[in-house]
């Protein structure tokens, strides 16, 4: 090949709709979140480990957890790690670029034994600190999905001002 020809590429954009069955415990989780602003985990009847997100089987014991094993968790937790995501990528749930930068943290809600990762409302990494307390921010009009908690906010002391 002499001159660099424009390489032949076929471009397409998938746009596939899915109806994911979320399971009995998730149904209860989102119901409580929507109606009562409650965050719930599931507690293993054998070892007592509290799982967040709630799920049907405890991986350590292979014992089933049902809706009756769900327990209320606090909407507050302690930050164990943080980052500020600062690069462009296409979000496959929307097909468009996810807005950045955004704060992203890993933390355990008080009462849970497993961690979760979610958006945190800070984009300056110098303003984060491991050990900060974070609190869920609930949408006024909730729909019963993860978007009902759009992000967690860092609870700032008055002394920090």
């Amino acid at each position, binding site marked *: 090949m002499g001159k660099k020809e424009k390489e032949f590429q076929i*471009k*397409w954009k998938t746009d596939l709709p899915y109806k994911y069955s979320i399971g009995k415990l998730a149904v209860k989780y989102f119901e409580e979140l929507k109606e009562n602003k409650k965050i719930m985990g599931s507690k293993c009847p054998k070892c007592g480990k509290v799982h967040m997100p709630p799920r049907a089987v405890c991986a350590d014991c292979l014992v089933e957890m049902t809706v009756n094993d769900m327990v209320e968790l606090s909407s507050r937790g302690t930050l164990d790690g943080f980052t500020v995501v600062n690069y462009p990528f296409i979000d496959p*749930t929307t097909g468009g670029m996810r807005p950045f930068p955004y704060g992203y943290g890993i933390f355990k809600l008080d009462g849970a034994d497993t961690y979760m990762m979610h958006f945190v409302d800070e984009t300056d990494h110098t303003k984060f600190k491991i050990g900060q307390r974070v609190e869920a921010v609930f949408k006024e009009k909730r729909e019963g999905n993860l978007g009902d908690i759009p992000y967690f906010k860092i609870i700032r002391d008055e002394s920090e001002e």
Partner: protein
Amino acid sequence: MSEDKEKKIYRGRIKVPYKHTAGAYVEKFITEIGKNHKIMGVKCPKCGKVFVPPKMICFKCFEKMEEWVELGNQGTVKGFTVVSHSTPVLPLKPPFAYAIITLDGADTEFIHIIKESDPEKLKVGMRVEAVFKEVPRKRILDIEYFKLI
């Protein structure tokens, strides 16, 4: 869906853009169709089988194929099905037929469409000829359809 059923599902979508490299064999095949109205295949140096659409490897011999063969633009219908319902993704307005066509000179089957509004006229074994698009777009539908001859 009832409100009860709606609670049990999460409606999600997967939307991802792709840029697929089709490769030099497909590029030559499509270019010959678009520019020169020629359908070309490749021949295995070991078993002599002629493949269309062309690809790099003969799967039986695991040999690289480099000999290009010009096939006729005509072929024989091996099988077909008539599309009579309408959906937005169809290449032609129904009724038309999807057909398996053995192009003259090829040892593999070629799948394409036959434009014929009277399904009664279609028969296995009949002869068809490619009709090319006026303005090629480097897609398989640069062969717009096959017609009965």
